[in-house]
């Protein structure tokens, strides 16, 4: 990064400043709150599942810009997705959506993947209940 350049790419800034789906769902079918004990990032992901499709996704975050942006991007990605598709979101896809190589510093990858961790835990809990 050059001196004076913005610290984050446009995707991160856009989703941090104008997060999508930042809301509590009325009747979530699946939910999980993930947190990073070191930095204190917290993100709760909620899903409304209808049959085998994610009808709605929402999140609540007290988290850094990268984590908040990742949650916002992830909920857009999940809305309307099949459960199989939702479960198949990879780390690399998440990092790419945040701006590709270099957009997320290595020390902050944990922040970027925290919402994905919440998604995987929410789906696992939902499958156990179902």
């Amino acid at each position, binding site marked *: 990064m050059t001196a004076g350049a*913005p*610290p*984050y790419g446009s995707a991160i*800034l856009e989703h941090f*400043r104008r997060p999508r789906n930042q809301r509590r769902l009325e009747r979530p079918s699946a939910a999980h*709150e993930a*947190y*990073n*004990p*070191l*930095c*204190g*990032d*917290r993100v*709760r992901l909620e899903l409304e599942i209808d049959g085998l499709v994610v009808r709605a996704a929402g999140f*609540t*975050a*007290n*988290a*850094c*810009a*990268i*984590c*908040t942006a990742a949650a916002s991007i992830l909920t857009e990605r999940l809305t309307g997705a099949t459960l199989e598709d939702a479960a198949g979101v990879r780390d690399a896809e998440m990092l790419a959506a945040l701006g590709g190589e270099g957009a997320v510093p290595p020390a902050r990858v944990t*922040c970027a993947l925290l919402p994905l961790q919440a998604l995987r835990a929410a789906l696992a809990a939902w499958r156990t209940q179902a």
Partner: protein
Amino acid sequence: MPDILEQLESLRAREFRVAMATLVAARGGSPRPLGAKLFVGLRGDLLGSVSIGGCVDARVAEHGQRLLGENRSERVTVTVDDTEARELGLTCGAEFDLLIEPIELRDPDQAVDAYETATRLSRSGQTAYVVTTATTPGQRPRRVVVTDLADVPTDAFFVERIAPPDVLVIVGASDVAATLARLARILGLRVVVVDGREQYATKERFAAADEILVGMPSELVRPFLRHGTFLVLAAHDYKYELPILRDALRSPVRYVGMLSGRKRAESVRTVLREEGLSDADIARLHAPIGLDIGGREPEEIALSIAAQLIAVRENKSVARRSEDAAIPAAPLARSSA
């Protein structure tokens, strides 16, 4: 500033009975509010005060020991009338009326029961009134506890309001927060500590806190966003500050302060303005937080915050910490771990 229940518990550990002096009237000004209490033991041990020390408390203590020995109650007037001090112009000339009565600490006692009942009600969030009714000279005053002023008996001669303590919510279990929690507890505030990190918000670090809450800070804070709450953001991290400020600055809380340098505080204000908060909402934010007393150590910063809380509670105008004394500003987007 322990409440009367804590004072009675402390006394009970070492005394069977004490004289309780209650300030019921003052002429010429009083440093302590009406209702202030001084407890006097048989051997002259003291707890509490009805003035700021000096000659008044000493004289009340003498009366207390005397009345304890005589096992009777009396309404006593103490005048600050030291001749030498008056001639030097070094006396305030005030006059205080005190109700002094022996109370039993380990046997049933109507006054102790009344104050304990009222304090328990206040701790549960309800305002209670201890009503002292007209008394016969020499005999114990009678007391009743009511929760509605309309129920105060017509022969009441003194009514004490025992209100729930003000609540201080500290977000961010930092070193500044740890000292602030201790100071605030001494000042009579109920202290709630909130953080998203359980290894910071521990009972060991916050022994003085009444409540420690770990989870999503913005959600944990929400039930406290009401009249009378003092809110201090001590995390020095926008990830907690922004979600809380969005709600808090639009709520009726009494005080919102944020640990921050001036530059970072302005960045936070800019973001909040862009998100639609009004100038009036944003003007409620005390940032940099605390009175301008200098000092950089966590304990010194905590003291400056505590002083500002008192000033706000007493409706005094407050000066803010200077740029020099504030925590160095960090760029908004980089302050997270």
